[in-house]
Structures are given as C-alpha cells and as structure tokens.
C-alpha cells in the first residue's frame, strides 16, 4: 500500500518536471512563432533587406542595420580575440598560482557578471568623451569586444586544460621556447574549442542592445559607412546603427505597422543566433572526435 503511494508520488513529480520543461519550451516556441507570424509578410519581402529605415513602415528596411552590424561585430570579434586569447593562454599556462594571476582571474569572473549597460556607461564615459573616439563603429566594436572578453578567456582556458601535460613536456624536452610551444602545439590543438567560444560570445553580443544604446547608436541612418578598402579610418569613425537597436526603435513606436517590421527584424536576428549556436554545437562535436587524448 505504502509502496504504491511512493510510486505515485514519484510519477507525479516526474510529470511536474516534464510540465515545467514543456512550459519553458512552449515559451521558446511561442516567441519564435509570434515573431514569425507578426513579421511574416516583411520577412519574405526582399526590399526589407535592401532599403534604409524610413518614416513609412512599408518602405522601411534594415539595410544600414545589418551592414553596420557586420562592421561592428568584426571589430568586436577582433578585439575579443586579440585581448582574450593571449590572456587565457597566460592565465592557464604561465600565470601559475601567482598573485597577479589570481587577481586577474577573480577580476574576470567579476567582469562577466557586470550588467551589460554598465559597459555602455564605461564606453560613453571613457571611449566617447575621454578618448574622443566619438559615437563610432570603432567605439561600438571595442565595447562589444570587452563584453565578449570574459567568455573568450574562460573558453580558451578550458580548451587548453584539455590538452595533456605530456605534450608540453615533450615540446620543452626538445628545446621548444614558450612561443613555439604555443604556436606549434597548444593553439592548433585548442583552436576548435576557442572558436566555439568565439561563436557563442558572438551570438550573445549580436543581440546586445543596451551598451550600444548608451554610447549613442543612431536609429535613423540612411547611409552606409565607407567600405574599409577605400577609407579605413572613415569607416571606423562612421556613425552606426545596430540590428537590435533598430528593433528597439521600431518596438517603441506606437504604430502597429512598425511593430511588424520589428518582428521581422527580430526573426532575422533570431535565425542568425540559431545558426551561430548550431555551428558551435557542430564544432564542439567535431573537435571532440578529432582529438581524443
């Protein structure tokens, strides 16, 4: 008798657990569905991708938004790799248990939990007004790069940790210097893991709105930055918009027609994030198969 009751309770709990999961997944799918249905006739409208924002919702598009997003993200990826990967290598390989390494480590843990809008205030106060970079693609890329930094450092360290010690000892025994060890062995073996981290960080950063909003991203921009092969500095200094900011601008307007644009642009962003996530999953799977120590 009692045993039955226990069984029943367990089954009940399992059902509750599944229901909770279902609730969360329903939430996810209703977001996707809502965006898709709301933005339906703009998503498949080619003009939506090739026209500038406009006062008329039917003519408004995301051309400047997606082009600028690409420029900004290239900057962000560059900065986060340039600063994050060497920092990760230092902390994992050469920092040891020294005081400096410990301080940097605690600091990075803390940075990863700082609200993103605070990065925006940092960028506004330091990059825009003190360094005089202006409200430009350079500032935006740098800001998002710093935001991605903790993720890159952590994933770099994790993928280095997976490489067995014998590799390092073997390299040193053959007389390799530190940079030879890193460039000939550690980086090639860990590049998959690092790349996964970069992609995940990218998919997070591409949805960030708040930090770029505070540094003054424009919402109505009817020109593209000069192509970098013609005018690199001009490209860096060009004012910018960003896909999520365009969405925010359209959502906060009262007219319903603009909400449809927001939904369509949101769906595009969502698909982009889904693709990036799947790629990172695939890479991780591949890498796990390639190097089995």
């Amino acid at each position, binding site marked *: 008798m009692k045993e039955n009751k226990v069984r029943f309770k367990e089954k009940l709990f399992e059902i509750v657990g599944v229901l909770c999961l279902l609730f969360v997944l329903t939430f996810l799918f209703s977001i996707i569905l*809502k965006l898709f249905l709301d933005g339906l006739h703009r998503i498949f409208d080619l003009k939506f991708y090739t026209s500038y924002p406009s006062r008329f919702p039917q003519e408004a598009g995301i051309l400047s938004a997606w082009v600028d997003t690409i420029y900004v993200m290239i900057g962000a990826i560059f900065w986060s790799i340039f600063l994050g990967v060497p920092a990760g290598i230092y902390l994992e390989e050469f920092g040891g248990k020294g005081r400096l390494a410990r301080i940097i480590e605690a600091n990075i843990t803390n940075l990863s939990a700082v609200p993103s809008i605070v990065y*925006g*205030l940092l960028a506004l106060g330091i990059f825009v007004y003190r360094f005089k970079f202006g409200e430009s693609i350079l500032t935006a890329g740098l800001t998002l790069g710093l935001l991605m930094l903790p993720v890159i450092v952590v994933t770099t360290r994790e993928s280095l940790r997976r490489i067995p010690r014998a590799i390092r000892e073997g390299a040193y025994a053959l007389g390799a210097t530190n940079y030879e060890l890193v460039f000939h062995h550690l980086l090639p073996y860990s590049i998959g893991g690092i790349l996964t981290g970069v992609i995940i960080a990218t998919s997070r950063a591409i949805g960030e709105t708040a930090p770029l909003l505070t540094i003054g991203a424009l919402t109505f921009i009817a020109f593209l930055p000069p192509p970098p092969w013609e005018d690199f500095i001009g490209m860096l200094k060009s004012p910018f918009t960003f896909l999520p900011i365009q969405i925010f601008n359209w959502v906060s307007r009262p007219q319903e027609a603009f909400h449809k644009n927001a939904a369509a642009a949101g769906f595009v962003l969502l698909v982009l994030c889904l693709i990036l996530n799947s790629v990172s999953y695939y890479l991780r799977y591949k890498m796990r198969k390639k190097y089995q120590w």
Partner: protein
Amino acid sequence: MRIETKKKLDLIFKGFLVLTAFTSILVTIGIVIALLEDTIRFFNHPEGGGFPSSLIRFFTEKEWTPTFVTKKIGILPLLCGTFLIAGIAMCISVPLGLLIAVYLSEFASHRVKEAVKPWLDFLEAIPTVVYGYFALLGVTPLLQWFFRKFDIEVQGMNALSPGIVLGVMILPFTASLVEDSLRGVPHYLREASYSLGASKLKTAFGVVIPAAKSGIIAAYLLGASRAVGETMVVAVAAGMYPNLTLNPLEPVQTITGYIVQVALGDLPFLSFEYLSIFAAGFLLFLLSLFFNLMAIYVKSKVERY
C-alpha cells in the same frame, strides 16, 4: 635562429601575454573611474543641491525627475521598480529552475537530457530585445485578457509582464548552475539514502538538495544579479515612468530603464542629465557587485566531499 634571438622573442611573447591579461584589470579600473568620477560630479552639481544635501535628497526624496525643470533626485522609485521586477522574475525562476534542475539531474533519462539541453542553450542566446518585444506584444495582451475576466484593468506598460519574461529568460542560466551543483553531490550519498530505503524523490529532496544547498543559493544570487541588471526587456515593456509602487499592474521604471530613456535623448557632456545616468549606473554596479560577492561568499562555504 640563434638562441639569443629566441630568448628575446620569448620574452617579448610573454610580455605580450601579461599585457593582454592585464587589460581586464584596466577595464575594471575604467568602469570604476568612469562611474565614480561622474557620480561625484553628480552629487556636487548645483542643480542637485551640492554635496551633503544632494546625497540626503538622493536617499530620502520620493520622486526621481532629474530631466524635468524641477529636479527631484530620490532614487527610491527606481530602486522599487528594479526590485519589483527582479522579485517577480525570481518568483518564476526559483521554483521552476529548481524543479527543472532536479528533474534533469535526478530523474530524466540521458536521451531526454540530450534532447532538451540545446533548446535551453538557445533560450539563453535569444537577444534580450526580442524578449522585450514578446513581453510587450505577447505577454501583456494575454495578461490584459486574463485580468479583464476579474474586472481588473492592466495597463499597456506594467511590471508583471517583463517580470514573467525575465524570469523565464534567466531560467536556463540558473537551472544549469543548479544542475551543476546537484551533479557535484557525490554518488555515495545517494546510495546511502537508497540503502536506507528512501525513495528517489525523498533522496532528491531530503539528501541531494540539502547537500548542494550553498551551490543552489549561489546560483540564485547570480540569477538575481542578472535580473537586476537586465535592460531591454524592462525598457520595452515596463514603461518609462518612475513610480513608487508595489502594484505589479502599474508601469514602473527600473535603473536600467532610466539609463536607456536618458541615453536615447540628446546628451550634452557633463550636463545634469548626463551625470544622473552615471549615478544611477554606479548604484546598479554596486548592486550587482553585492549579489556577485554574496554568491562567491556562499560558494566558498560549499562542503567539499
């Protein structure tokens, strides 16, 4: 290559590594300097009433209107809005996160886990502005429809809808942290419990959860820190009106929402409005730092098995 040049190259290489690692400290210093300096300027600004009185007004006044002609600088309405929404989010996120984590780590089969994990990860990767869109145009109409049955009017901007959405948004994050700490509980504890005749459910709630207590609390503290610092959902769906209320059906403004509102406008360098977002941001920074340090402290109390 000669050995001397190699040694030199090695030194340069190591120096470069240390330098990049050091930039993270520079970032922290930059954040503190940027926020602190302008916060001090804010409290010294004549429009706020000069140093000692502005600080008193900051904590005692009940209105927040630095952008108006008559400037009131009481932070209370913003704090109230922030904690109201974060509180609603935690009400969703704590029970659901715990149930999902316990289910996934103790009950679910390997196949269910593998099938669900990518979707939870994806939920975490959805841009926050998309969540904001969904809160404003998906959840709010639903709530209005629901509450109309009880003759309760829900405004287009309210605290409840972004709170709920925020709760689901931080759920994958907290649930996976909770799951990690549940998995950290060694198996012999579970086996001891089973051998005493306890059921799976009893083991999960009577043994595993108490053993992972500090990890779970740390996870929720980190979740709370996220909920307090989240920006776009509240900026889109909670309204732009600093409101000293605990009624979740009214529009409120959070600290982050205020920063967005001001940043959208024209912002002359070192004007009172410009300085006020740094004061608000500094408070936000301290709040999230407080939650994070608490989480680290609680985690340091973790029992080692």
